[in-house]
């Protein structure tokens, strides 16, 4: 036993180190930068600058308040005419040229933003004044002009060195550095060390036969692993017994739910959502796991009343085994999700691995809620009916079949405090967009899961001695 625990701890530590290292590469830029809190927003146009005929230079200064400029948008007009020639846009800081791009007139949209993606982002300009210079080589009559705002803006534009009150209609977007990126390896080292210390202390207290929560938990899992596996097996066998398709239902179910919802909602939401079917299916898979797991846990104690009043078994085994069988179901229903990704052309990037972090948080969260509900169910049978309604409400309050963007600002707080939105939303970012969410998302999801687990297991522990009396 001593050897097993030692090996288990060493493997845990190693896996943790690998995960921390892999995370750095998977999270990539999102670990270092987040979109800036000081973008320059586009202003409404109310006037037009002078035409960009050959030799004319229009310039405007702006103060850069971000660490990295990534994108600039400018609104031009061609006066709805055939325009010829080119337009050049430059960014300068004092004498040095930061960026320059030449556009052909045909590429410039009429009174819509022309986006300049700055491929090699401009860094280290925070707090400095950047000059944007725009000039063209067109003949008079076939030249473009920049849209301006003169009514509200009190800035100054220079046209051939002559100042004009107003501002050009342009926007600047970029990102700010976050401290985690700079200190990631220190943080990683701290976490790895903390885990090592924890494991070492636990191991020592096991060797010296002192009480330790971690060791006790491991021994309990070890002791009852056979029972847990039998209970999980029973859940599966009795669930699909006497049904012809059996386990196939585990992945037919989400597919069918998705198809129905897709047929109903696709006309409303496809336009503004990238890869709507995958968006929908990932939401459906996650939410059905949550509702199945909590509902199964809810009845886990009361359904096993005969056992609990006849044989001594640690009672947490029942919600735990139910949530394990739901998790296996979830794993099965990931198969259609992956298939849908492949068929619908969502590229599966390595970042999709981060999806599992949020799934793990979701599972722990559901277990916590499930333990809470199963304890409550012993004392108030009404909770089973109430919970059906509550999950319905929760489903509509979570962006599953609709995009989060359509929620009006005044109700945004509902999704912000909704843990399921965080789990599902971040999981989707990893899977569909192939990028990691910003580091704080990991922390929030971890905290949501832990708070739920602590509340659930605390309630359970406090009430479990009275279960046998009320069942």
């Amino acid at each position, binding site marked *: 036993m001593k050897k097993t625990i030692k090996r288990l701890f060493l493997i845990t530590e190693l896996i943790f180190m690998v995960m921390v290292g892999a995370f750095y590469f998977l999270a990539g830029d999102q670990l270092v930068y987040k979109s800036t809190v000081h973008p320059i927003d586009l202003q409404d146009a109310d006037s037009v600058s002078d035409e960009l005929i050959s030799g004319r230079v229009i310039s405007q200064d702006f103060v850069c308040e971000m660490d990295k400029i990534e994108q600039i948008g400018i609104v031009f007009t061609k006066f709805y005419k055939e325009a010829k020639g080119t337009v050049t846009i430059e960014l300068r800081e004092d004498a040095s040229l930061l960026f320059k791009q030449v556009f052909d007139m045909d590429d410039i949209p009429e009174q819509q933003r022309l986006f300049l993606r700055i491929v090699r982002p401009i860094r280290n300009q925070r707090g400095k004044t950047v000059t944007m210079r725009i000039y063209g080589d067109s003949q008079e009559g076939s030249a473009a002009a920049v849209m301006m705002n003169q009514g509200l803006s009190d800035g100054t534009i220079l046209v051939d060195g002559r100042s004009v009150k107003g501002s050009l209609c342009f926007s600047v977007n970029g990102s700010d550095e976050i401290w985690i990126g700079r200190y990631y390896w220190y943080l990683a080292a701290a976490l790895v060390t903390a885990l090592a210390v924890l494991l070492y202390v636990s191991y020592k207290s096991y060797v010296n036969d002192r009480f330790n929560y971690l060791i006790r938990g491991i021994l309990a899992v070890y002791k009852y692993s*056979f*029972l847990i*596996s*039998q*209970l999980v*097996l*029973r859940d599966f*066998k*009795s669930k699909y*017994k*006497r049904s012809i398709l059996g386990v196939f239902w585990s992945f037919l179910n989400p597919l069918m739910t998705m198809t129905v919802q897709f047929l109903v909602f696709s006309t409303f939401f496809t336009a503004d959502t990238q890869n709507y079917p995958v968006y929908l299916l990932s939401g459906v898979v996650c939410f059905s796991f949550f509702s199945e797991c909590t509902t199964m846990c809810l009845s886990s104690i009361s359904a096993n009343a*005969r*056992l*609990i*009043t*006849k*044989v*001594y*078994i640690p009672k947490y085994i029942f919600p735990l085994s139910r949530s394990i069988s739901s998790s296996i179901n979830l794993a099965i229903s990931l198969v259609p999700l992956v298939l849908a990704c492949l068929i619908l052309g969502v590229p599966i990037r390595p970042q999709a691995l981060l999806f599992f972090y949020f799934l793990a948080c979701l599972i722990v969260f559901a277990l916590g809620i499930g333990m809470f509900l199963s304890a409550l169910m012993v*004392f*108030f*049978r*009404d909770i089973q009916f109430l919970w059906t309604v509550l999950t319905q409400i929760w489903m509509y309050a979570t962006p599953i079949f609709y995009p989060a963007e359509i929620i009006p600002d005044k109700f945004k707080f509902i999704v912000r405090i909704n843990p399921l939105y965080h789990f599902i939303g971040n999981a989707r970012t990893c899977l569909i967009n192939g990028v990691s969410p910003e580091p704080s998302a990991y922390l929030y999801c971890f905290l949501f899961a832990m708070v739920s687990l602590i509340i659930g297991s605390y309630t359970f522990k406090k009430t479990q*001695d009275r279960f*046998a*009396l009320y069942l």
Partner: protein
Amino acid sequence: MAEKMIEVKNVSMKFRMSDEPINSLKEIFTTALSGKLKYNEFLALDDVSFDLEKGKTLGLIGKNGAGKSTTLKLISGILKPTTGTIIVRGNVVPMLELGAGFDLELTGRENIYLNGAILGYSKEYLQSKFDEIVDFAEIGEFIDMPIRNYSSGMMARLAFSIASVVQPEILIVDEILAVGDVAFQEKSYNRMKELMSGGATVLFVSHDLDKIEEMCDQVIWLDKGKVVMKGKTRKVCEAYRKS
């Protein structure tokens, strides 16, 4: 002096009983509002103390509602005492209600593993004892059939075989010897004696005084949660018969 396997010290068990079971929010509100939320406290065990040495067999006798089953449940850990302490050393196999963990949809084979796991046996142990269980239960070719098709006698036999296949340190028996037909009763009775002679410490509840006299070293007579008398089997049984 022999090692004490079970120590029960000043144990009381109080049940709160409402006149009707209140199981729903609505009932709680309505009863609370009408001021009828009263509990009758019911003392199932009142300051009971005893201990049991290794290898000894203790019988519990008394009328219905005397607290025999509560005592067994307390010792097997299903209930926690209101006051007092219970110390149990060794693994307990409770034969309280056999087959409590059976799932009717599963086959006999699957149920052997499930029920064995519930009783705390390991996988390897069950695998090695599997044939013995099936033979003893006389289930034969029905083993791979869902047990909802079993007769009640078959189910009881299977349950007894699973529960009695171990060599427990502490065995708790609540009148389960009346299982199956006469021949199987005889067989299970012999198995029980075999377990007892194998060094198990046994707690035994029965209304059958002859069985108690035959099997037990000591007897405790309970009435309304109180110990009326405890001591040598013959003496206590005689006093109980006279009452």
